């Protein structure tokens, strides 16, 4: 069950306001890497332009692991490791396949469909990353404290939603409507499934002795 606590720090409306979203698990522990999106009731503003995003591969992990991007954004996957990676996704929102590359691949991948794209590496099974393709430009990802800030939200009505890779319930259950008129704080309590993770292969040690 999800409890939604909505508190208003400021009662008066303003032209733009910041929204602080706090995500916790039922035990009260902060939940990091949760994407919080605010979708304006009036639809996404046309002013927002996609920009080049990147998800790095560092030490055989996707960094960041959870990345929210505006729909239509090109995302490059620079490889910071000395080993090759083969980044792919079979997610309905974006199928792509970047076979075995070192360094940055020539062309970024454009994520033109809103939705969640799970990315993996065909070489390193444990590497999992998520790209949240948002139709709204207002999004943020919770930090280690479970806090995400949606800055300078124009006043108005929004549908607020929270997504997390291990979300137990369908994403729709997190949807919440709010009128933003001033700085506000919202809190979500999410039940998370246990993470199914592939065990990392042991890293090669030493220098070329093998």
């Amino acid at each position, binding site marked *: 069950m999800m409890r939604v606590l909505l508190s208003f720090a400021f009662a008066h409306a303003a032209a733009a306001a910041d929204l602080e979203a706090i995500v916790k698990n039922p035990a009260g522990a902060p939940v990091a890497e949760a994407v919080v999106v605010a979708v304006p009731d009036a639809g996404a503003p046309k002013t927002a332009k996609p920009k080049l995003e990147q998800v790095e591969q560092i030490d055989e992990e996707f960094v960041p692991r959870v990345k929210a991007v505006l729909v239509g954004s090109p995302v490059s996957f620079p490889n910071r490791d000395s080993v090759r990676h083969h980044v*792919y*996704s*079979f997610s309905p929102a974006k199928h792509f396949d970047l076979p075995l590359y070192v360094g940055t691949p020539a062309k970024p991948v454009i994520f033109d469909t809103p939705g969640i794209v*799970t*990315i*993996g*590496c*065909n070489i390193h*099974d*444990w*590497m*999992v990353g998520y790209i949240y393709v948002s139709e709204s430009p207002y999004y943020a990802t919770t930090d280690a404290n479970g806090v995400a800030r949606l800055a300078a939200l124009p006043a108005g009505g929004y549908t607020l939603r929270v997504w997390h*890779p291990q979300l137990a319930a369908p994403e729709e259950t997190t949807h919440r409507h709010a009128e933003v008129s001033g700085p506000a704080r919202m809190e979500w309590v999410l039940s998370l499934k*246990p993470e*199914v*993770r*592939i*065990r990392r292969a042991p890293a090669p040690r030493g220098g070329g002795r093998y």
Partner: protein
Amino acid sequence: MLRLGVQSLQSRIVVFFLALLTLVQGVALVLLQKANERNARAHIRQELAVGERIFRRLSEQNAARLTQAVEVLSLDFAFRQAVATRDLPTIQSVLLNHGARIQADRMALVSLDRRLITDTADPQNAGRPFPLPELVQAAERNGRATGIVMHAGRAYQVAVVPVLAPTPIAWVMFGFLVDDRLARDLRTLSALDVAFFGRAAGEPWTALGATVSASLQDRLAHVLDAPHRTALEVDEHHALVIPLASDQADVVAVLSSSMEEAMAPFRQLGTLLAVLVAGSLAACVVGSIFIARGVTRPLSALAEMTRRVEQGDYAQPVRLAGPQEVSELAHRFNVMREAIAAREAQVTRLAYRDPLSDLPNRTLFNDRLRVAIEVAKRSGTPLTVLLMDLDRFKNINDMLGHHIGDLVLQQVAQRLTALVRKSDTTARLGGDEFAVLLNSAGVEEASSVAEKIVAALEQPIEVSQQTLDVGASIGVAGFPEHGEDAETLLRHADAAMYAAKRANSGIAVYDARMHERREEELSLLSELRQAIDWGELRLAYQPKVDLSRGDVTGVEALVRWQHPAKGLLPPDRFIPFAEETGFVRTITSWVVDAAARQAAAWRAAGRPLKVSVNISVHDLQNPELVAVLSAALERHHLPAELLALEITESGVMRDAARAIEMLKRVDAAGVGCAIDDFGTGYSSLAYIKQLKVDELKIDRSFIRTLVSDPKDRAIVLSTIDLAHNLGLAVVAEGVEDGATAQLLRELGCDQMQGYHVSRPLEAAAFETWAATRAASRRSSIS
């Protein structure tokens, strides 16, 4: 020799060791069998415990291997792509292809909401709920899941892994049938029989796959209970039930090991041991027979030896090689055998040899004689027995002692032996009696041998510087004419010998009359012993008359035997053989006593008469003679001068020294003595002079022809002169007529005796005769 009697020492030894060994080995075998069973059970338990560990480990490895194999598939990029894109034909072909590669029996793809996307077992299942949701649940928790499940009556080892892209987008399941093949694989590795059983809830156990027989599977299915770890024992099989956990249905593996297989090595050992036991029993039998023989063979040999000794065969020593005790015993037996042989030889010698002469004795002679008679009967040849008696041996023995007598006998034996052939037998029968058995010799030949013997023995024998004349009388009896058996021959030779002795002829060949005579003598001798008791002996008295005065000076008492059958027997019919046996002394005693009694009677009647008694040479050798005389005199209160003795000249001369000595003692007792039959005994004057005698009685042979033969007259005259010169009275015997009496009177003879005076008369008759004569003389004088 193997003796199998229960009583034999050998069989006892064998049986004892056999029984002991059988007992010990039997106990050992039983203990071993029990230990083997215990070991086998422990071994099986151990084996099952180890097998269980191996089995579990194998199962885990198997599951891990399967899981990995499935994971490899699930991570295949193309497969993931196909799954992600729900490309069903591709998915199915990949599943089949990979399943074939890893020999899976059933493959399925399951959606995240646990519905079947595809199922190689049945395409119709697509869209249906996955029947093993708990595995998916476990896989969601652990990233993978394995398990053994029952489905549609079959058991599968199942692995469920996610299809990651890179998060799970579906579950892929591979199932491997739990069947005979798996059981066989596990058996290969665990070395235990494996059987799988499964049951749906509420259903009975069914066998899924096994390496054991169908019947054992049935038995196991019957005893299986709850799917717990349990140890079972079924039909000589030890089994361990291992649950292969599942929630909805039960599957168990039963590991088993046959007791028979576990026992097999022990059985081999048992067989080997049985062979060893049989071998050692055989060795025991052979060995104990061998050892027992070491004991019993010497015993048998010793028993055999004693049997031979018992039969008189001392020649064969017992030879035993063997243990020291045995050879020592054999040695002692040999020593004993030789000692017995030596003693028996000694005994035999004593029994069959005369120790003095070393000649065969009577027993051996009789034996040889019997054998010789048997041989002679068969061969038809004659044989002869010589029986010899020394004439004067008794004198030598009595006068010179037994020592000299023995030396004489030895010399006689040597002379005899020298005269006969080796094949003949010379024996000493006892005393001075010898016998010679002449084989194959007739009587004539034997007689010449006898003559040689007599001649040889007439040669003086020198013993201890003394020269002795012995002389011999030999009786000859030949087979078959004189007897056909040993006893008869010897008896007849004996009769002949006595005949020879009586005739003084040296040799006599037996004839039947001798035998009759001898027989009579022998029967008389036995009767004579009773004659005294029964009062059959009588005395007759023959008067002696003084030639010059004509009066009766005395009487000579002559013994008579009133034999109940033969009538009155004169002394020469029984005195000679009484002398031979020594019985004459008893007769003499009786005569002395009877004569003394009569003399005493006459004296009491007022007519004292000197009664003379004849004594034999044997009486001279009787040291009791004087005592007998004294006793008779005393008993009848008779003055000694009324009793006198008469002894023949030849009797005196046969043992002159003793006669001189004895007559001295008789004289000292006051009893007078006359020399009887004087002139026939070749007496030496040297002896006569020493003899304490009163009278000489001239032998009747001189008197009978005195009137007609001047030579006799000369002899008688010189004898009378000699006697008178020696102070002796002279009595003429056998005077039968008046002319002779007259001539004797003229020759100076003192007294006469004979039929001219009177024949011997019994006491009463004599008294009548004397009364009549006295009356007539009184009338003639007056």
